[in-house]
Each structure stands twice: as structure tokens, then as C-alpha cells.
């Protein structure tokens, strides 16, 4: 792909050298693209057949998905006992994974919505995949609260529906119920936001694909989009509204997730700094995951010109700042414990750092606070390989953050008599893997069948050369 492009536009400015990029603010999109090129480049990956790399990736992730599915089936058929939980540690992998995936989701919304509100043009080439990621992450997250139930088949009892029991409603005072509403709202809104953004691109696909299943599907889902300026006008308004809604939604969702813990009496959970702490953590982990995916997509889908080093750097800076916030939160926790004079609180944190689970705690600190400091260095930020590695590390670290919060707080609480330890079973591990399998399978399918970059938006931010028409006429004849 890349070389065909260079053939078409043989100017040396097409692939500018890095230094130039860094100094004078370079275009968001490299390679002096025209709208037509955008359409062409972005539609190319799924108009061509899948690459071998794609097949490999998909095979791997789908296998893990199947493994996970088997594990979950066995667990639901046999009982929660197939997990390593006990009377003292009632939650571990399940809720850890839940919070982890919700967190992942958040960066997607952040990038697409918040950056949109801040008119950050560079978001345009990443927001589509970021939103997709959000969608899939929240899907994974949503699974865990259901399968972690002793009787998942009764999950619908969480919903306040009229019934013949009196009627007996639900407990609106329970953070878990807030979760139910928050997560489902988040899933639906993200889905709508994503789809609305997709409509014009679907129209593009419809118009350029030959008669066949793709065209049929595209024409159904593009809702007869014709590019009328009046529609564009309303569309912009609604898109802005959705962005405006999604932004507070992101914060509320993770605030509520954090309340699962913050409103409990368990030392290590019962703390007021959780909402901001969790939101920061969520964005942190989310950014890391976006980076991971973007860098992969960039390579696999050959979109180097659309996801440029500038995007990567921007993301790195965001990630670094979030990492620092998270680090601050870790510190604050200890301070709060020490300052509160609450012996239970103090013990929990000493126990985190020095108790049986200290390995988990220090893994978390290393991955989330220490290693990301490397991103202060420009050299690191611009080194794709390193950035990729760091993003992975942060993902791991953020998973451990949730594990530490949940397990170390539970396993030694008030009465020493009921202190217990915890170790996962194979089923739990398989379930975690399965969630990753689900996530990546969905994402790979997304890459295959849906434009990973919002064409309509990218076209909007193309640098407009003043005598573009000359090319135009040439190409006009060519066409």
C-alpha cells in the first residue's frame, strides 16, 4: 500500500523526516492526502482480503475466547466454588476484571468525546477505533458482574420491573444497582455515539462497493445518507450533544464503580478519594490500551500516514500525566490512612505494602508509576517499540491495581480469626483470558469490516492546499 502511494505522489514531502515533524507543526495527516486518497486508503484494508497477519491474530484471540467460554460454562454449571474465592475473599478476579475492562473503555470515550469538545483535530484518526474499543471493553466488563453471581440466571432481578411479589422492587441504595444502570447506560450511549459517527462512512462504503452483501448491508445501515448539508448541519449538532453527554457519563460511570468500594466499610475500600482516583486510573489504563491497539492497527492495517508519531506522542503525554495522577493517589491513600489514625485503615495499607500480597502491590507501583516516568524523554515517546512495551506494562499494572484494592483489602479485615488467603483457580485464569479473547476477536472483526478511521472526519481536517484544483482536474479526467 505504502509504495503505491509514493508512486502516485512522488514528492519528497510525502514522508517528511522526523525532525521536521517535531519542529514545525506538521500536518495531522502525512502524505499530502486528498479526500479521494483518504477514502481509498481507508477502505482498502477491508476491500482487500485479510492479510495472513490478521488471520493469525484472529485465530489466536478466537481460541482464547473459546477457552474462556468453556471455563464460564463449566463455572455456571458447577458453581462459583470453581473459583478460588472463600468466605473472606468474596471477590477477586471477577470484579478485578470488571473494573479493569470498564477502565479500558473510558479512554475511548475520552478520546472521541472529550477531545471532540476541546476541538482536538488529531483525535479524528483515532476516535473510531477508540470508540470501538470502548464498546468491546464495556461488553467484556458487563459480562463479569453477571457471571460472578451465584445465580446468574436471575440477573434480571436487578431491574426494577413490576412483579407479583408485592411488588418487590430493587434496592436503589446499593452501589451495585447503580452499577447496573451506569454500565448499561454507558454501553448503550457508547454504541449510539459510535454508530452515529459511522453513518456517513457507511454511506461512502455503500457508494463505492460493488453490488453485493457489503453494499446491501451498508445501504441498510447508512439509513439512506445522501450527504445533504442540512442533514450534516443537524448531524453536527447531535454529535456535539452526544459528546457533551458522554463526557460526564464517563466520569459518572467510573465514579459509581469506585463507589462499590468507597461506600463499603472495609478498610482500604472505605475512602473518599476513590472517585477521582478511579477515573484517573481508568483513563490511564484506557490510554494504554488505545495505544496498544493503535500501534498494532497502524502496523497491521498500514495506516502509518494517518496514525503518525504526533498522535503517538500526544497519547504518551496524556498517559504520563495520568500515570502521575495515579501515583499521587497511591501516595494519598497512605497519607490518609496515616493521618486518619484509624488503626484498621493503617493496617490495611501496611499490609498491602508488606503483607502476603506485597508482590502484587509493588508490581502495581512499578508498572503504573515508575516505568511510565520514562515517557518524560522525547526519545522514548518517539520510539514506537518502547511506547508499545510501556503501554503493555501499564495495562498489566492497572489490572494489578484493581486486584490489590480488592483482594488485599478483603483478605485481612477486622477480625483476625477470619483472615484468609486467596489464589486463583485455572477456571478464573481461563475466564480472564477469555475476556481478552472476546475483546480482540471483536476488535479484529471490526478492523476487517468497518473503516477503522472516521473518513468523513479525517477529510474535514485535511490540510487544504490552495491550488488543489490542479490535481483535481487531472484526477477528474483520470476518473
Amino acid at each position: 500500500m505504502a509504495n503505491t502511494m509514493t508512486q502516485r505522489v512522488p514528492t519528497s514531502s510525502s514522508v517528511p523526516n522526523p525532525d521536521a515533524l517535531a519542529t514545525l507543526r506538521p500536518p495531522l495527516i502525512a502524505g499530502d492526502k486528498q479526500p479521494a486518497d483518504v477514502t481509498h486508503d481507508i477502505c482498502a484494508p477491508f476491500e482487500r482480503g485479510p492479510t495472513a497477519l490478521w488471520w493469525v491474530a484472529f485465530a489466536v484471540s478466537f481460541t482464547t475466547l473459546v477457552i474462556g467460554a468453556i471455563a464460564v460454562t463449566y463455572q455456571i454449571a458447577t458453581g462459583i466454588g470453581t473459583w478460588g474465592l472463600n468466605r473472606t475473599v468474596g471477590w477477586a478476579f471477577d470484579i478485578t476484571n470488571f473494573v479493569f475492562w470498564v477502565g479500558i473503555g473510558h479512554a475511548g470515550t475520552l478520546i472521541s468525546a472529550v477531545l471532540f469538545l476541546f476541538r482536538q483535530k488529531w483525535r479524528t484518526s483515532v476516535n473510531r477505533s477508540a470508540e470501538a474499543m470502548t464498546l468491546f471493553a464495556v461488553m467484556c466488563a458487563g459480562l463479569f458482574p453477571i457471571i460472578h453471581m451465584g445465580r446468574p440466571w436471575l440477573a434480571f432481578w436487578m431491574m426494577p420491573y413490576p412483579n407479583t411479589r408485592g411488588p418487590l422492587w430493587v434496592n436503589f441504595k446499593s452501589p451495585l444497582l447503580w452499577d447496573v444502570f451506569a454500565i448499561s447506560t454507558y454501553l448503550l450511549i457508547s454504541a449510539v455515539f459510535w454508530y452515529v459517527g459511522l453513518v456517513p462512512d457507511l454511506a461512502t462504503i455503500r457508494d463505492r462497493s460493488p453490488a453485493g452483501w457489503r453494499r446491501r448491508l451498508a445501504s441498510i445501515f447508512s439509513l439512506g445518507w445522501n450527504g445533504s448539508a442540512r442533514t450534516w448541519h443537524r448531524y453536527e449538532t447531535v454529535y456535539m450533544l452526544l459528546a457533551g453527554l458522554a463526557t460526564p457519563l464517563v466520569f459518572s460511570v467510573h465514579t459509581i464503580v469506585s463507589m462499590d468500594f468507597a461506600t463499603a466499610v472495609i478498610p482500604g475500600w472505605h475512602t473518599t478519594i476513590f472517585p477521582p482516583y478511579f477515573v484517573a486510573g481508568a483513563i490511564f489504563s484506557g490510554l494504554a490500551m488505545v495505544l496498544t491497539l493503535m500501534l498494532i492497527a497502524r502496523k497491521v492495517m498500514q495506516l502509518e500516514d494517518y496514525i503518525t508519531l504526533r498522535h503517538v506522542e500526544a497519547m504518551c503525554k496524556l498517559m504520563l500525566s495520568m500515570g502521575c495522577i495515579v501515583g499521587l493517589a497511591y501516595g494519598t491513600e497512605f497519607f490518609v490512612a496515616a493521618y486518619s489514625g484509624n488503626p484498621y485503615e493503617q493496617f490495611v495499607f501496611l499490609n498491602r505494602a508488606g503483607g502476603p500480597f506485597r508482590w502484587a502491590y509493588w508490581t502495581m507501583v512499578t508498572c503504573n508509576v515508575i516505568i511510565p516516568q520514562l515517557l518524560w524523554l522525547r526519545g522514548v515517546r518517539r520510539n514506537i517499540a518502547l511506547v508499545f512495551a510501556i503501554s503493555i506494562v501499564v495495562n498489566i499494572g492497572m489490572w494489578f491495581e484493581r486486584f490489590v484494592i480488592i483482594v488485599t483489602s478483603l483478605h485481612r479485615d477486622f477480625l483476625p480469626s477470619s483472615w484468609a488467603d486467596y489464589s486463583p483457580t485455572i477456571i478464573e485464569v481461563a475466564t480472564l483470558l477469555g475476556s481478552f479473547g472476546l475483546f480482540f476477536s471483536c476488535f479484529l472483526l471490526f478492523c476487517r469490516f468497518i473503516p477503522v478511521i472516521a473518513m468523513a472526519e479525517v477529510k474535514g481536517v485535511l490540510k487544504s492546499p490552495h491550488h488543489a484544483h490542479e490535481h483535481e482536474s487531472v484526477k477528474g479526467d483520470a476518473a
Partner: protein
Amino acid sequence: MAAKFMPPPIAPFVTTRDVFLAAMTKQRSEFRPSETKPHSLVRRGGNQVAPAEAAALSRRQFLEAAGFTISLAAFGGCGRAPVDHAFPAPAMPAGTIPGQLRSYASTCTGCSAACGLLVGTRDGRPLKMEGLPEHPLSQGGLCAVGQALPIGLYDRQRFAEPLQNGKPAEWTTIDHEIVQGLDRIKSQQKAVRVVTSTVTSPTLRARIAAFVKQFPDGRHVVFDPNSSSAILDAHQQTHGARVLPHYHFDRATTVVSFGADFLGTWISPVEFTAGWSSRRAPQANKPEMSHHVQFESRMSLTGSNADRRYAIHPSQQGPLVGRLAEIVATLAGKPLPEKPVANMDGKFDQQLAELAERLWHERGRGLVVCDSQEVGVQRYVNYINHLLGNYGTTLDLERPSRQRQGNDRDIESLVEELSAGQIGALFVADVDLLHALANRPGLADAVDRVPLSISFAPRGDEFTTHAKYVCPDHHPLESWSDAEPISGLMSLGQPTLQPLGNTRAMMESLATWMGQPTTTLAALQAYWKDSVFPRRPSSASASFADFWDVALRSGFVEVTPEPVKINEFNATSLKPLMPTTAADGFTIVLYNKIGMPDARHAHNPWLQELPDPVTKVTWGNYVCVSPADADRLQINDGDVIAVSVGKDAPQLELPALVQVGQHEGTLAIARGYGVKGTDRFAKVGPQWIGANPTVVDGELVGVNAAVFQEFRSGMLRYERSGATVAKTGKHRALAATQKYNSLELPSNVAPHGAEHRDVIQRTTLAAFAKDPHAGAAEHHATDTQLWPEDHPKTGHAWGMVIDLNKCTGCSACVIACQAENNIPVVGYDEVRRQREMHWLRIDRYYDQVSENVDVAHQPMMCQHCDNAPCETVCPALATVHSSEGLNEQVYNRCVGTRYCANNCPYKVRRFNWFAYPHPDLRQNLVLNPEVTVRSRGVMEKCSMCVQRIEAGRIAARTQGVPMADGMVQTACQQSCPADAILFGDMNDPRSAISAALKNPRRYRVLEELNVRPSVSYLRVVRNRDEEARRG
């Protein structure tokens, strides 16, 4: 025959039809019971059921009657629930009401203490054992073993019919052959031995005596697996009568115990606990309580409750007793002619001196007991008590105890005769001879050589496999019995169910073989008419029928005791003790667990899963090793080590347990394990890919430690010196319910100034006398509310107060709760994974972990907080607060998020990780129909026996009276031998609990969280002089 045991109607007592439809399963129990009762049962205070009405009925009928049950045959159309059949018994006797609880006074047979029993039956099924409140010994208490009786009744592995050489046979044929065999033996002048453990039943004792009298050489050998033979022999020598004194701990202000675990397993624990605890309640205006000193080598339950506990080496016990005797003698002005012990290390001299002072000062109110099996030592014990004038006050010889009659000399000679092949006929009842005498290898072969060997065992054991005939006895709940635990205290045991199998009472078997067949009832009445009725109190009515009725209704009757001839104390009998040299190597100390007083109970899943009050370990036995030795040998909990004593005895491999408070150089191993047939528990608990079996196949629950016993100077000794220990490198994690054993936080992570958690508050009597509030934790327990109090409790406000000073941790309440609330047995693996299901647990904390360790026990169950953290977080409203202050758990609404359990500061909530199997439908007859059987995936916890509260409320409403204080008793409260648990209405100013709440010792656990628990505790007070340490 066997087929008859499972006719269709008895189908699901636990309906599994809708585990997936969110239905908690509860057995249908509307069947017509009364037919299943043998005739002339007498309900307490109730009217007699005429024999005519209660025609005996076949098991077929019983099981039919047992089934008001569901047969999941047809499905009605369009979403109908499965068709549910109801099988009313064809004929229903008068006065029986379906579903109503009926209690029958009876006598417990769990051990030879013969406590008073109240058998709660519903629909003809005995379900719940309770203490008989009026009983002079147990005083309403009942131990864990007694509570666990009923599950044995419904055990399928009980023999359903007699066996002949291991094959089922008819009674007639067996009787015929046995009678022939006996005649032959009579002619051959061969020896006939009837071996039983202590027989508290005078009738049976007389019957056996009569039986053996027919033979030229017939004898009744009494074999107590944990015998007190030495005490009896010592009294033979010092007082001229081979009797066991009746100990009155309730009269003792100073108790000195040398190794005697009288609160746990020694002679009559329930009675002793009741007595002991009656002196453990200091009042603010009257700060007095008994002083209890314990010298012991292992950590026993009694030791864990002592005011002073000294860890001693077993070899020191004799010398210490002797030394004490010496000091007391000098105080009494009658110095001993010769020193009791030649070589005396001065260790403990000063303590002993103080103790002697105290004892002497409290003459007649002290009590010295010792579990030594060395007659010499026991003689000195008697001497001490004699000098202190305790005989007649705290020890009673006029009305001696009949709770231990074992005579080890007879056993030893029996063993000799057996190996010499002199025995013609051997009858063995309620003791597994071969298991209990495992220290005599080759005994099995000797038994095989006995021409006529007969076992009365209810289940297969080692002896039955060698016995020619097995004539299974009834389960105690199926048969009549009587008992005379204390001379003059006669109690009756009545059946509550027709025999489930084709079994026969031992009494009847013997009668048949004597050629004068009779029913047990007839035999009892005959005996009582002749030898009990005449001794009746003057108040009793002159008609035997009335006398019998009264006795039957009240369960016991006091009559004038048979006179015993007691001589003046024979001081000449005192002989110096053998000089004891601390043998090299380890000394093994054999003991019995509270949950496993003897091997007879090895088939009881409840007892197997009962956490030992001290070690908190379930399922099987282990070697307790002292911390010092553990450090030296690098042994950790669960390391399997091999223990052996020389060549002759086999070596045993058991997991180790490091036991604080145990004396260096000793190994403590529990007996009563490794019982044949306990491999039945291999599949107990959930089966899934990660599960470890409770019993490794081919093996048994625990190992039989009896191999380490030995006969020494005519006594069966439970300690053995010269043992060696070797590590095997194997590891078997112990299934302990408590992993962290101290209130001291781990030093490396303990916050400065808060290293100790005052969950259990303690003080000393000295401090308490100064300030009744001494020992209170100083944290500002704020009582401010964030929100208005808009949940007034206008009606009742149920609450509980637990006196930690009375509570010994005996765990009777744990089993009481399990029996009452259908709590499942989950097996070794689940317990190991910290998933035990007991609603009521007893936390045990070692305080300062050192040579002299302080132990505290704390029953912990749902605290029914008014500001319950669990309730707020449940999304489904499955756990909410009742208008009477109860924290309700609604199983059928629970979806199992486990959020409530996470948020419970006391961690008292239990989750059904699996569908705990109820495969054995017969076994399920033990389930309490008043309590839902929980399905998989739901949370459960202590409900403060809400079913009893509701029953009480309905009863009161029906009579149109308010619920009286004490009308409702929780299961744990009812069973508590120490009377440490008090339940009642905190809104009723006149209730006992309202008074208890004003007690200065009262505090609430984790009060500072302001969750406002409804359960309060009373502070521990140790009778010591030094000032209270905080917490």
C-alpha cells in the same frame, strides 16, 4: 429386604426440581408420624397414647408415612408445576398433629455421662437433641456429641439385619446357633466374656451379670477406651471401695487439675462445665469467682480456660502431685513419713506452695483432680483431697458416680486369655475391641480363634469383620434404656421411632439366649419395679404405674442411693512414686478430641467437621508439636511426619500441627480416628475438577493412635515415652477454620500503637474488683447518626448477650446450630479453602504466644446490626432488616453477588459455593422442616433461629398472650452447658437480657464502627492478682 428401604414415596426430601428456578428446597413433611412411634410413648406433660392406637408398623409403612413427598412424575399442562402427591397414612392415631414439634424426655448415650435429653421430634422423626433443663447433672446443657446423635440414626451404613459370618441371616437361625454354641461352651467349661464400655444402665448391667452367671467362668469386662480405672483403683486402696467420686465443681472455689480435661472430655464434661461456669460470673457488688489452675503437657480446652496454666512434661505430673501432697501434708500438720518422690527438681515449688496455701485456706471448698492412669499418683490426689476435707463437699463418695466403671486390669487379663485361647465365647458391645486395643497386634487372630465371637455393633468395625455373629443393637433413639449416672439418680431413655432396621436391643438378645425372651420395656419395668420403686422418695405415689409415668415424663427420678461402704482414709496405702526419669526422645500424649470422645462417633459427619475448640482443625487427627520442637526440627503445619516408638509398635504418619502452649518434648495425638468404614467420607462435599477428596481412597479419616497405648502396672496408659519423629517430606494441609490465631497483628505490618485488636476484652479479678469497667477498650465509640432514626422498634427488639467468662469454647452450640438450621457438611477440601458453612463459629485467640499462653474463645455469629453494612449493599433486597431488629437473609431472593459478605465486618456470612449434595434420602430425614435447605449460589447466615421466634409468636398469639421472656430459646442458647448465651427481647425492661445489658462487663465487638450490633459480649475476667492488660 433391602429393597424395602427405599420405596418411591420417600423421594426428594430435598426437592432438587427447581434449584435452577430459584427455589430454595425444603422437605415436605406433612406425613403422619405417630404410627412410626412404638406404643406407649409418653409425651412430656402429654397424655399417654394407648397401645391399641399405635399398632407396630413395618418399615415399608414408616417410609410411606414418611412421604408427604413429591414424586416428579407427570407434568401438568401449560407451565404447571410438577404434580405433587400427598400420601396421608391410612390410619392416624389420636393426638398426633402433623408438623408439630414434640419433645420426649430421654437419656443421652453419646458417652457414659448419661446427660438428660429432650428429643425434639416432628412428624415422627427425631430431629433435634436438646438438654433436659430439669436434669440435675446436665442442667439443660448438651455437648456437641449429644447434639449430633440423630444423624447417626438415619445412617444407611448401620446394619439392617444380623450377620452370620458376614452374611445377612435371620434372627431365628442366629439365635438357634448361638444358644447351641453357648451350651457347648458351658459343657466345655470354657470362659465367657462380655466386653462393654461403661454400662450406666442398671437394668442392662443386671442382665449381663445374670447372663454371665450361667457359665462356670463368665465375666463382664468393662472397657472404657478412655478409662479412669486408676481413680477407681486408688479409691479401692484409700477408701476401700472401688468407686468414682462424684465431683462437684459448682462447690469448688479453687480447682487444681493435673491434666484432667474436665471441661472437654473427662468423665462428665457437661455437668462439670455447668458447675465450673456457675462460679465464673463475678458481680460488680460481689467480685468473686473460682480460681482454676491447670498443669498439663498439651493444650486442652480446660487448660485454655484456666486462670493459671502451667505447661509440664508428662513425666513431671506424678512428682508435682506428690510434692503438692507433701506441702499440704505439712500444712495439715501430718507430714508424710517418706517423700513421695526421691528426685524432685525444684521447678514450680513456689507456685505449688502458693497453691497449697490457697487450698489450705479454702479447705472443703477446693478440688484437686488428675487424669493420671498411675494408681500411685491418684492415691496422693485422694490424700490431698482428704487432708483438705474435700470429701463430702466437692467430692462425693456416698453417692458415687457410675460414669466410669472400666477396669483396665480385667482388660489386660482378657487380652492374655484371648492370646492364650482360653476364651470360649466373646460378646462385644459398643466398643471396637480391635480398634481400641490396636497396641496389641495379633489380637485379631486371637479373636478369630474364639469359637463363639459376637458383636453388637450397629455398624461394621474391625471386630465385626472377625466376629462370627453380628447382632446389631438399636440406635439409642430407637430403643428403651435407663441409666444411673450418679448413684440414686435414675433416668429413662425412650424410643422416638420404630427401628429402621431389623435390629434388636442387646438386652433382648441376651434375654433370648438365656431362654427367657422379653422386650426391653418389660425388662426395664420389671427391674424398676423390683429395685428402683422400693427406693422411691416418700413423696412419690404408691402406684408403680404412676411412678413410672412420672419418671418417663420428667426423664429421671431421684431415689435413695444404694449404700456404699466407705472406710476411713487408709494412709498406709500411700507409697512413694517410681522415680521418673525424663526418658530421651519424645513423649506421646494420647487424648480425645471434644468432637470425637471415642471411635463410636467416627461415622458422624457433623462431628468430623466440627472444628476442634483448641486447634480449630476439622477432619482427622494430627500430631501436635510444641513450637520449640517445631523450630528445632523445621516442622510446619501440615508437614506429614512419621512417629514411632521402637521396633514393636508400628509407625504412624500424620500431618503436624504446631501447638502453642504445649510442653517441649511432647507429641499430642488424638485417639478415635482411623476407624474402619470412614472411607465412606471420600466423596463428602462437592465434586469438581479442582476438588481434593476428604479421604484419600483406600485410607481412612485420620489414623488410629491407639497403637501407642501400653499396659503398665495394670493400667492402660495414654502416654508413651521414647518416641522418635522423622519428616517424610510429604505435606497434607490441615483443614483448619482459622488461619491466623492471635489478636496481635503480624509485627512487620502492625501500625504503631495498634498492634493489638481488642476484639476480646480481658481483665483480671483484681482490676475488676477495683473498677467493674476495667479492661474496656478506650476508643471513642461515636453514636452520632448521619440520618434521622426513622426505624423505631416498637415491638420486640431481639438481642443476645454472650458471657465470654462462662464460655469455654466447647462448641456444643456449633453442632446445635448445624442441626437446627440444616447446615451442610462440606468436607475436608472446602474447609481447607476456608469455605466451612457453620453459621456459628467460635474464634479462638492465643494471646501472648509464649510459654504461658493465654487463650480466649469467642462465639461469633451474625451480629444483627441495626446499621447493617450488608443490607445497604444488596441490590436485590435479599438481606434486609426486620421491624424487630433481626437481620434477615431471604435465600430465595438472593442472587449471590457476595457483596454483603465482603462488607460484613464480622465475616459471619456463608455462601453456598456449590449445590452441597443431599444424595442420601434417608439421611435427609434429619433435616429440620422449619428451615429452608439452601440451594447453590445463595448467601446464608445466623438468623437468630427466627423459625423458633415465629413458632413462639404463633403459639403466644394462639393463646392470646404476649410472648414471655425465655419462651423462645435459640438452639445455641438451649444447648450451652455453661449457660453463657442469653437471648431475649431488649425492649422488655423485665427481661433477663435487659438486665444483662446493664452488666459493667458488657461490650460490643467493633463498636467503633457504629454498625450497632444486637449481640453483646461480657468481658473475660481471669482470677489473677496482677493488673489488667488492655484488650
